[in-house]
């Protein structure tokens, strides 16, 4: 079975094609224009392996946290592909992806930094999460890091490990595939909405 992984949470966009659990092909691109390059890259990766979207048996989407616009592009493409092709879709967070890619035998702290602070999560050596995902301002992060600095891991992606991890995850209804943002916006601090959209 062919699986396609879509990761748009970072400046570096990554598309990976698996045959069963083996990485068949991958392409990354850091030109920052995810909106215009993501679909062409997906198509190129499939085409150069003599495949098209209809050969896909599964989708894997990295739903963030990371760039808001980036994760929306990945999630939108992922859920639309899964819905229209009628194939299973699974999601993984960017933080979990980095944690499981790392083989350190101590606790692990994953950080995804941006201009004003950092997303993060703290894991045991066997990738059990200790604290919830967080977003901390630079100041709060420095405080938090006082006794944890030594556990910060490099953000590297081991695509084979990611696939084995995803194999054990549940399939998600495409309608329910959505980015996780962690960081809420000023206008909507608690991240909750009292009024949902309605059909006209």
């Amino acid at each position, binding site marked *: 079975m062919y699986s396609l992984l879509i990761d748009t949470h970072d400046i570096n966009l990554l598309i990976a094609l698996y045959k069963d659990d083996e990485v068949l092909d991958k392409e990354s691109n850091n030109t920052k224009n995810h909106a215009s390059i993501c679909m062409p890259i997906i*198509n190129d990766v499939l085409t150069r392996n003599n495949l098209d979207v209809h050969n896909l048996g599964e989708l894997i989407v990295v739903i963030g946290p990371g760039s808001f*616009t980036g994760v*929306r592009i990945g*999630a939108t*493409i992922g859920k639309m592909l899964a819905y*229209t092709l009628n194939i299973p879709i699974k999601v993984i967070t960017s933080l979990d992806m980095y944690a499981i890619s790392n083989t350190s035998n101590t606790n692990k702290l994953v950080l995804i930094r941006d201009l004003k602070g950092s997303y993060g999560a703290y894991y045991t050596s066997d990738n059990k999460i200790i604290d919830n995902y967080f977003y901390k301002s630079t100041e709060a992060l420095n405080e938090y890091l006082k006794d944890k600095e030594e556990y910060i891991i490099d953000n590297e992606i081991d695509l084979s490990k990611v696939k084995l991890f995803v194999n054990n995850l549940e399939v998600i209804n495409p309608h329910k595939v959505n980015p996780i*943002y962690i960081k809420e916006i000023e206008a909507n601090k608690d991240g909750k909405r009292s009024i949902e959209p*309605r059909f006209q």
Partner: protein
Amino acid sequence: MKDVFILGIESSCDETSMSIIKNGCEEVATTVLTQMDTHAEYGGVVPEIASRMHTENITIVLEDLLKKSNMTIDQVDAIAVTYGPGLLGSLLVGVEAAKVLSLVYNKPLIATHHIAGHIYANNLVKPIEFPSLALVVSGGHTELVLMEADYKFKVLGSTKDDAIGEVYDKVARVLDLPYPGGPNVEKYAKQGNHTYDLPIPMNNKELEFSYSGLKSAVINIKHNAEQRGEEINKYDLARSFQDVAIDELVRKTRIALHEYKDTIKGVIVAGGVSANSFLREEMQKLCNEENVDLCIPPMKYCTDNAAMIACAAYPKYLKGEFSDLSLDAKSSVELY
């Protein structure tokens, strides 16, 4: 000739919409999911929330459309999408969704301008005859446009500063009226009298518009009343403002009609502000007096919807003007 079905997608602001249109003029089905009530809590559209909600609902809207239309995407001939102008994060959701449909179903992709959509919504009423005089009125546009053929637009006059829809929203905020501003100003205006003296903008024979002076005058009336500890009459101020603002549109349209009377086959009104019933009445009066045909889309096609996007894509389909998978959204893009 074989019938042409186009699936349109619109997500430029706070409506997630998809529609299937036959031959550029006949509605098969349309789904509009509006976030208006959510944004009303904030007094206006919050772009980040709008983008999030588009992502959450894009496949739900597609499912609803397919159920309503009783069609499959295999049966449509092309996928059309609004690529601009609008809120970038919102537009992107529609654009990426359209590209997926284009790839999965191997259908041509048609990038459509939002304002072209508003103009071509008139084809849902009757075919636009060329040349037509179009009054384009929305949150970002106030223009008189001579439309000589499909996608041949000649701007006769446009606003030097604020767009009419923008000023309606501003006046709504000055009067403390809830979001959406424009329809609420109209609601208040209906119950008021023209008692406030407001300046006539661009009181000349040019076809240009200017609304900043009128806007400032409304702000000043409110401000001066506050200084004196007096209450303004919101109904009367809304009415006085609306009378002047709409009269300006009608007056300039009349000038353009006189200038191009021999050639123009009809007048069309397009854009979100064409939902204003006072404008609709006044334009009808004008066209009756000038003995020229008027076309304004029904109310449901005046607010943002994907039906108009599929209509506007039809002439491009016939000409084979297609986009590839690298299509990007643009927050600001000229039509003319």
